[in-house]
C-alpha cells in the first residue's frame, strides 16, 4: 500500500501521530486532485492570494491616492489601454492598481471574518451536539436567534455605533455568519457522538474536553472545512456589498469600495463599463472559486459521490 | 422437459467499479426444481447476494454477467424491456436484505402492496386490487385492517411479513429471499420462517433462500449450496450436508455452530484462522487453500472442479478427485 507499511520499532508515539496526519493528508489530496473543478477553484484562489501578497511589487500603492494621481496627471475615465489595462476611474486612478490592492482587503476581511465565524460556530455546534439535552436546547435557541437577524439592518446599526470601516464589517459578518455553520456542525457532532467509539472513550475514563478534542473534532473537520469555504464565499460577498453601500473604510481600497466609487461617479450612465466590470469580475471569480472548492471537498467527504 | 423453475449455468459476474473490475462470482451452476427450497449459504464477500440480485437483473448496468440464467426455460440475460418486466415480480420476486427499511414511511401499507399489483396489471380495478391486498395480508397472518397503518406502526416481524406479502402479490413461481430474517430476534425469526414454510407448501413456491445463518437453512431448505469466494464449494441435501460434509469449508462452517447439549462443544469454540478473501486479492488455485486444514501442494495451483460426493451432492475439492486419474 503506502511506504509506511513496515515501520521500524523505534518510532515514538509522536512520530506515529505525525505520520498518520501526513498519510491522511496525502490521501485527501489524492482524492481532491481528481476533481477538475476543485483544482480550478484552488488555482483561482491561489492566484488571488499571490496577487494580494505581491501587491507592492505589482503596483504602486500611491496609485490609489487621489492626490498622487492628480499630481501625476493621470487621465480621467480612460478606457482600457496598454498603459492602463483596466482603464482609469473618475479621479484618474488605474483600476488595475485598485483591483490589485483591493484584493488584499477583500481577501483579508473575508478570511478573518470567516475564521471568527467558524471559531464561534464550531465551539457552539460541537458542544451542542456532544452534550445534548439542556445545553443543546439553550445553544440552539441562541443560534436560532442569530440566524434570523437581518444583516443589513445590523450593519447599518453597527456602522452608526462603531463608525464605518473594516472592523464594523468584520463584526457584522461574524455575527451574522456563525449561526448556520453552527447548526450544520452540531448535526455532525451529534452523529459522531452517538457512535460507539465515543461511548468507549467515556468507558475508559476520558474527560469530556478530551473526548471533544480527540474524537468529535477530528471527525467533524471535513464538515468544518466545507463550512469554512462556504462562509468564506459569503463573507467576500457581504464585504463587497457593505463597502459598496458605503460602510467600508474610506482610507483603504477594496473591490467593494472600488465599485462604490464607480457608482457614485455615475459610471453606469456614462458607459464607463471597465470601472464596474473588472472589480465585479474579481468578486464573482473569488466567490465562484470558493464554491468550486466546496464542491470538491464534498467529493472528498462523501465516497459515494466519487464513483460517479 | 425442464423441471427446474430456475437454472444457472456457469454464471460469472464482475462488477465494474471506478477502481477496476471486481469478480464477485466466478462460475456458478444451480438448479432450483419447482416447489423446492434451495439455500444459498456463505459468508461476507462470497457472492451470494450478488447471485440473488442477478437473477432478476437488478445489478448496475455496467456489471458483466455471463453464462445463462434460465427462468422456466427462458434465458433472462437475453431479455429486454417488456419481457423482462413481466418476469420481474410476475414469475419471480425478491425479498431484500433489510427489507423492513424498504417500506415508504409516508405511505400506508395497503397502498404499497397495491402498487406492486398495479405495476403488473394496469387494468385491474381498485376493488379487485383492494380485495387482493386483503387476501395477501391474511395470507401472511396480518389482519386486513392493518393495511391502513403506516410502516412505523408495525413491529420488525410485521414489516417483514408485509414484504413477503408484496413478494407474493403477482403469484410468482419463484421467490428469492435475501437474508430475510437476519435482523430479527430468534423468536420472531422462527415465526417468519414458519410462515414462509407454510406459504411455500401451500402455494407450491420455489424459494432461493440466501443467508449466512446455517441453522436457519437446515430448518427450511431441501437442498443447500455453499459459496466461498465467488464459487460453489459444496452442494447437497440439507439433511446430510452438515452432518456428513465433504468439503473442508463446509466442515469448518458447521463446526462454528456449537451444538447445545453436546458436552464436547463446551469451551471448545471452533473456527478458521484468517478471513474470507476479498475479490481483489484472490488466492491462486483453490481460493480456500490458505485457510484449509487439509490443504496439500496441488491446492495452491489447481482450482478444483466439482466432484460427486458420497451423499449425492457435489463438492469442489481436490481431495474428492484424488481417486480419479487425471489427464
Amino acid at each position: 500500500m503506502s511506504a509506511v507499511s513496515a515501520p521500524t520499532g523505534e518510532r515514538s508515539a509522536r512520530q506515529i501521530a505525525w505520520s498518520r496526519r501526513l498519510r491522511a493528508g496525502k490521501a485527501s489530496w489524492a482524492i481532491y486532485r481528481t476533481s477538475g473543478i476543485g483544482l480550478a477553484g484552488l488555482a483561482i484562489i491561489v492566484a488571488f492570494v499571490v496577487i494580494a501578497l505581491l501587491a507592492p511589487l505589482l503596483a504602486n500603492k500611491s496609485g490609489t491616492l487621489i492626490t498622487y494621481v492628480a499630481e501625476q496627471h493621470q487621465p480621467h475615465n480612460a478606457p482600457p489601454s496598454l498603459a492602463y489595462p483596466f482603464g482609469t476611474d473618475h479621479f484618474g486612478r488605474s483600476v488595475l492598481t485598485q483591483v490589485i490592492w483591493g484584493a488584499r482587503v477583500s481577501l483579508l476581511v473575508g478570511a478573518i471574518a470567516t475564521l471568527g465565524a467558524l471559531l464561534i460556530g464550531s465551539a457552539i455546534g460541537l458542544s451542542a451536539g456532544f452534550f445534548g439535552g439542556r445545553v443543546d436546547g439553550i445553544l440552539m435557541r441562541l443560534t436560532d436567534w442569530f440566524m434570523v437577524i437581518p444583516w443589513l439592518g445590523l450593519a447599518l446599526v453597527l456602522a452608526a455605533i462603531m463608525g464605518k470601516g473594516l472592523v464594523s464589517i468584520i463584526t457584522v459578518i461574524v455575527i451574522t455568519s456563525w449561526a448556520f455553520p453552527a447548526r450544520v456542525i452540531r448535526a455532525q457532532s451529534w452523529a459522531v457522538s452517538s457512535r460507539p467509539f465515543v461511548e468507549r472513550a467515556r468507558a475508559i475514563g476520558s474527560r469530556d474536553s478530551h473526548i471533544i478534542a480527540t474524537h468529535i473534532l477530528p471527525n467533524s473537520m471535513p464538515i468544518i472545512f466545507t463550512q469554512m469555504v462556504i462562509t468564506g464565499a459569503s463573507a467576500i460577498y457581504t464585504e463587497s456589498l457593505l463597502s459598496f453601500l458605503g460602510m467600508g473604510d474610506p482610507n483603504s481600497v477594496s473591490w467593494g469600495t472600488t465599485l462604490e466609487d464607480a457608482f457614485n461617479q455615475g459610471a453606469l450612465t456614462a458607459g464607463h463599463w471597465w470601472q464596474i466590470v473588472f472589480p465585479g469580475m474579481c468578486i464573482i471569480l473569488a466567490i465562484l472559486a470558493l464554491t468550486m472548492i466546496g464542491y470538491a471537498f464534498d467529493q472528498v467527504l462523501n465516497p459515494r459521490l466519487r464513483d460517479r | 422437459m425442464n423441471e427446474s423453475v430456475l437454472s444457472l449455468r456457469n454464471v460469472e459476474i464482475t462488477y465494474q467499479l471506478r477502481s477496476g473490475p471486481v469478480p464477485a462470482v466466478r462460475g456458478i451452476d444451480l438448479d432450483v426444481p419447482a416447489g423446492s427450497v434451495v439455500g444459498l449459504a456463505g459468508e461476507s464477500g462470497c457472492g451470494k447476494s450478488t447471485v440473488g440480485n442477478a437473477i432478476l437483473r437488478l445489478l448496475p448496468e455496467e456489471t458483466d454477467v455471463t453464462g445463462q440464467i434460465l427462468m422456466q426455460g427462458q434465458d433472462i440475460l437475453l431479455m429486454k424491456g417488456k419481457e423482462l418486466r413481466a418476469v420481474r415480480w410476475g414469475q419471480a420476486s425478491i425479498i431484500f436484505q433489510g427489507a423492513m427499511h424498504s417500506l415508504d414511511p409516508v405511505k400506508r401499507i395497503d397502498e404499497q402492496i397495491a402498487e406492486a399489483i398495479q405495476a403488473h396489471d394496469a387494468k385491474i380495478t381498485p376493488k379487485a386490487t383492494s380485495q387482493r391486498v386483503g387476501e395477501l395480508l391474511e395470507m401472511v397472518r396480518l389482519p386486513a385492517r392493518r393495511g391502513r397503518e403506516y410502516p412505523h406502526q408495525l413491529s420488525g416481524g410485521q414489516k417483514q411479513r408485509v414484504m413477503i406479502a408484496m413478494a407474493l402479490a403477482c403469484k410468482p413461481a419463484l421467490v428469492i429471499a435475501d437474508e430475510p430474517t437476519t435482523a430479527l430476534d430468534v423468536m420472531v425469526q422462527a415465526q417468519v420462517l414458519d410462515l414462509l414454510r407454510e406459504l411455500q407448501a401451500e402455494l407450491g413456491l420455489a424459494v432461493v433462500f440466501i443467508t449466512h445463518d446455517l441453522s436457519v437453512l437446515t430448518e427450511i431448505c431441501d437442498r443447500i449450496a455453499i459459496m466461498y469466494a465467488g464459487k460453489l464449494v459444496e452442494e447437497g441435501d440439507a439433511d446430510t450436508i452438515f452432518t456428513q460434509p465433504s468439503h473442508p469449508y463446509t466442515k469448518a462452517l458447521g463446526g462454528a455452530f456449537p451444538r447445545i447439549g453436546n458436552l464436547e462443544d463446551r469451551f471448545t469454540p471452533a473456527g478458521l484462522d484468517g478471513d474470507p478473501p476479498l475479490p481483489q486479492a484472490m488466492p491462486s488455485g483453490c481460493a480456500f487453500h490458505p485457510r484449509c486444514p487439509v490443504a496439500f501442494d496441488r491446492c495452491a495451483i489447481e482450482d478444483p472442479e466439482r466432484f460427486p460426493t458420497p451423499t449425492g451432492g457435489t463438492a469442489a475439492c481436490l481431495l474428492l478427485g484424488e481417486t480419479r486419474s487425471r489427464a
Partner: protein
Amino acid sequence: MSEPLLEVRDLRVLFHGHKSITDSLRGTTPAAAVAVDGVNLSIAHGEILAIAGESGCGKTTLARTIMGLQTKESGAILLDGRELSTSRRDLRDHRKRVQIVFQDPAGALNPRQTIYEVIAEGIRVQKLPGDELERVAAALSQAGLRPPKAFFERFPHEVSGGQRQRVAIAAALALEPEVIVADEPVSALDASVKGEILQLLLRLRDDLGLTMVVITHDLGLAWAIADRIAVMYLGKIVELGPTEEVLTHPKHPYTEALLSVVPEAGRPQRIILTGEAPDPTRIPEGCRFNPRCPLLADEGDQPIRVRCLGESPLLRSVASGHEVACHLVD
C-alpha cells in the same frame, strides 16, 4: 476468593420519556420505560457469565450500567465489595478495572486514529506508568495480533473484521482490567471467524484470570464459553444457573421456548411464542411473561392463574445454583 468480584443488587434502570406539549397542557407525564427491573447478580473471580435474551430485554442497558455509562434509578453495583458511586474519581477507578468490548468493531474504533493511538488512549487517560510503546505492544500481543509493531500505524479500516475485534479487545486489555463486559462480541463477524475470537476470550480468562460478562442473544455462544447463564425477559432475570443445567434442563417457559427454536439445541418440539415482547413502558401486571406464556394458556387451574396474573414471581432455587422466577415451577 470466595467473595464475588462483581455484584449487582436490586438494580433498576428507567428511561424517562420526553414531556411533549400535549403532556404539558394536560398535566400528564409520559410513562417511563423500565429497562432493568430489580436485577441481582453475583459474579465470582475468573467466571464467565452470559446474559442472554432478545432485543429489548435490558441486557445491554444492564451492561452499560455495570460500566458506569448509564445512570441507575436505584440499586447498587459493587466491585470487590465496594459500592460504585457517581463521584468522578470513583467512576475513573471503576473504569480502569471494568472494561467493555462493543459489538461492532468498525463503529467502536475512531476511524481517524491509528491502531496505536486507539490503544494508547486508555493508557494515557488512566495515566498508567511505564513505557507506553511497550504497553501497547503487550496488549496487541495478548490479543493475538503479532508482530504487534506491524499494526501500530495501520487504521482500523485497513485490517479485517476479526483483526478489528482483536484491536478492540487489545484496547480493553491495555488498561489491565479485572472484568471485561463484552456486548455481543462476535455477532458482527463471519461465522468462520467467530471461533477464534471466542477462543481468545477463553484464553484470556485462563491466562490472565479475567472475569467476563458476555451479553448475547446467541444461546450457542453461551454454551461454548459461559460458566453460568442468566436469561432476561423485559428487564428481569427469569432463569439463572450453570450453563449446562439451564440449557439442557430449562425450567422457565421462556427459556424453553427460546431453546426450542434454536436448531442447534436439538429440542424435540418447537414452541413458537405468539406476538412480540411488549413495550417496556407498558409492562404487564403480575408475571410479565403471562401474555405469551404457553404454560398459562394450557393452565385450567384457577388459583395458579390468579397468581400469574397478579403477582410477579421471584427467583427461587430449584436445584444447586439453578434459580427460576416462575409460579408454575415448583
